[in-house]
């Protein structure tokens, strides 16, 4: 869960960079002839909102409304008591208490005289939000995610790279000789300590003992055939890295015939299977291998940039 350090590092993400994203969204509004664009967020689908305003919910759902020519408005049901904190780590100056998100969006639209708005990936909204909006009088234009986040920019790539470096370093330290014999719970604890201290916001640790795929810790002992995978969110950017105690690696990009699973790390969810692996746009992906070795299954994987020229490890 997102219980790490949620901050706004203005050196890595200058105010101007976020303003440029908003300007780009204004052009999306123009292209779709809508006076405002809406982005959904919840505690597990927070990537797009973080991109737009640096907002990251530690709990619950929210909508970010970007009016054409105006500042982004946050509709959320978190207590107004945490608004000062939200304002300190995001672009938001206006936050509207919204226990009912569709109703609040419709009210805001009525107040502003909007008869239609764009919603990023409207069909991806939770049914509970989608149904009242689809049935309401406010016309909804379904705007594809690619219009708002066309490709990973250099600054985003740098953030994912940093997250991947943290994951690789922590795994290298945690899977050394001293790991042999400890439980996977202890291993997960060591990774938590190292990565939360580095400011990880969210962290998922999965461990394989060589007989199963990587799974949540279950009390198994770490042995020479064990592997661990870390999915790490740092400053709103995910990385996923797997390493094994035996030190077995696999060349990236993968050779034909390798057992490989590729996921997008810049989609709405932290990681999602790529429907079309050969995307022409720059996408941040996780590439995970299953390596047969010594009668067991070892795992190795990393975070890469996939673009027109192929796969580049970050």
């Amino acid at each position, binding site marked *: *869960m*997102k*219980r*790490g*350090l*949620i*901050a706004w590092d203005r050196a890595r993400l200058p105010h101007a960079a976020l303003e440029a994203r908003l300007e780009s969204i204004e052009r999306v509004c123009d292209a779709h002839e809508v006076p405002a664009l809406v982005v959904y967020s*919840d*505690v*597990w*689908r927070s990537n797009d909102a973080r991109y737009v305003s640096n907002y990251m919910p*530690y*709990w619950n759902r929210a909508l970010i409304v970007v009016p054409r020519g105006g500042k982004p408005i946050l509709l959320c049901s978190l*207590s*107004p*008591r*945490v608004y000062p*904190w939200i304002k300190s780590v995001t672009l938001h100056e206006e936050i509207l208490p919204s226990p009912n998100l569709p109703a609040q969006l419709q009210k805001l639209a009525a107040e502003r005289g909007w008869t239609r708005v764009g919603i990023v990936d*409207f*069909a*991806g*909204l*939770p*049914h*509970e939000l*989608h*149904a009242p909006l*689809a049935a309401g009088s406010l016309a909804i234009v379904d705007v594809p995610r690619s219009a708002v986040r066309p490709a990973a920019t250099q600054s985003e790539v740098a953030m994912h790279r940093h997250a991947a470096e943290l994951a690789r370093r922590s795994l290298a330290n945690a899977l050394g000789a001293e790991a042999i014999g400890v439980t996977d*719970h*202890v291993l*997960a*604890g*060591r990774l*938590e*300590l190292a990565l*939360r*201290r580095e*400011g990880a*916001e969210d962290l*998922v*640790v*999965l461990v394989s003992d060589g007989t*199963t*795929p*990587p*799974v*949540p*810790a279950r*009390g198994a002992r770490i042995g020479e055939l064990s592997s661990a995978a870390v999915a790490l969110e740092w400053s709103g950017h995910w990385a996923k890295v797997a390493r094994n105690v035996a030190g077995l690696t696999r060349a990236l990009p993968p050779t034909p015939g390798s057992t490989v*699973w590729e996921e997008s790390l810049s989609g709405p*969810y*932290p*990681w*999602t*299977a*790529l*429907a079309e692996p050969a995307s022409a746009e720059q996408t941040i992906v996780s590439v995970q291998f299953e390596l047969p070795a010594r009668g067991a299954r070892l795992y190795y994987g990393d975070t890469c940039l996939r673009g027109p020229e192929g796969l580049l490890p970050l």
Partner: protein
Amino acid sequence: MLNRERYEQFIALMRERSWDLLLFYGDGWRREHFRCLINLSYSGPHALIVLSRNGELTTIVTDPWDLEPVRSASGGRVILVRQLADGLREALAGANAAVTAVNGLEQMEARLVAALTEQLKVPPVSATLEIEEIRRIKTPWEIDLLRKAAELADRGYDRFARVCEPGLREFELVAEVEAFIKAEGAEDNFMLIASGGTEVTGMKPPTDRALARGDSVTTELTPQVNGYYAQICRTLVIGEPSERQLEAYRIFSEAQQAAQDLLHPGVDIADVARVQNDVFRKNGYGEYTGSKYTRVRGHNLGLYPDELPHVLENVHYLCKKDMVLIAHPNTYLPLSGYMVFGDTLLVTDTGCVSLNRTERRLFNT
């Protein structure tokens, strides 16, 4: 593993409601809708179970690492797909279901609901509230897990209290506690924190603020053990507590005790909130029991750390034996700033018992 007792209850519910299919949908956030039947933490962005009235199970997963664990846990058919909608079409091909209910329908992506409707020719209905009601009454196996989670919350708080010191930054404190709780077997943990004085109005994720003498440091720790969350709320003062902090704690402690004294089968949960708020009113702090200063006076616990019903004066629900909930009168007071205090409570035949063993006091370093 398949929760066999729930499985039987859900089949009975399907027969009672004349549902042909009952689907259990979970995403990365709301996993409880899935895990109430197959208690396993999947890795993919979503997973879905199709339960037919004759008891057959088909599970759709979207991450290859989920395939074997789910197959092993469910004993049924498992389909691995990149897009969940494709799995729905495959799982429901040829299904002749007049009525399909979905547990977790509210959180399901609208495109999946559309795919479901297209496949079955009839829109699904929500089963969420009815399943929630079944889940509120914990089975003996679930109570055992909640006891373990509460025991881990106690040990986690002990760790919290031991590492707090001036200069430690909030996120470093969280790192220490998270590491401990994970190393001791927690699957996950929901944790909020705050530090400071009367300027602090609520808890949130950790910042880089360094703890200082005189601070109240508040936390709610909510470790998850094999799917089930238990919670503890305590406040700690860095250094010696002031008279005002002690006075605030006395009010919080009395309020929580009032809830614990009242809670028993048949009591309206609104009254569990009311008796807590009455203590604040009696002490002249009634205005701090409203939504401007606080969220809830407790909540149900289980596969989700903030289950319904919430403990609020305007929420009416008759408590039942074997419910597990936390009563916490957490709020802002001008005496101390935001303060928290609460235990996980198991409703018994005649009252309730706390599953926590942590001392009931205002902690200090």
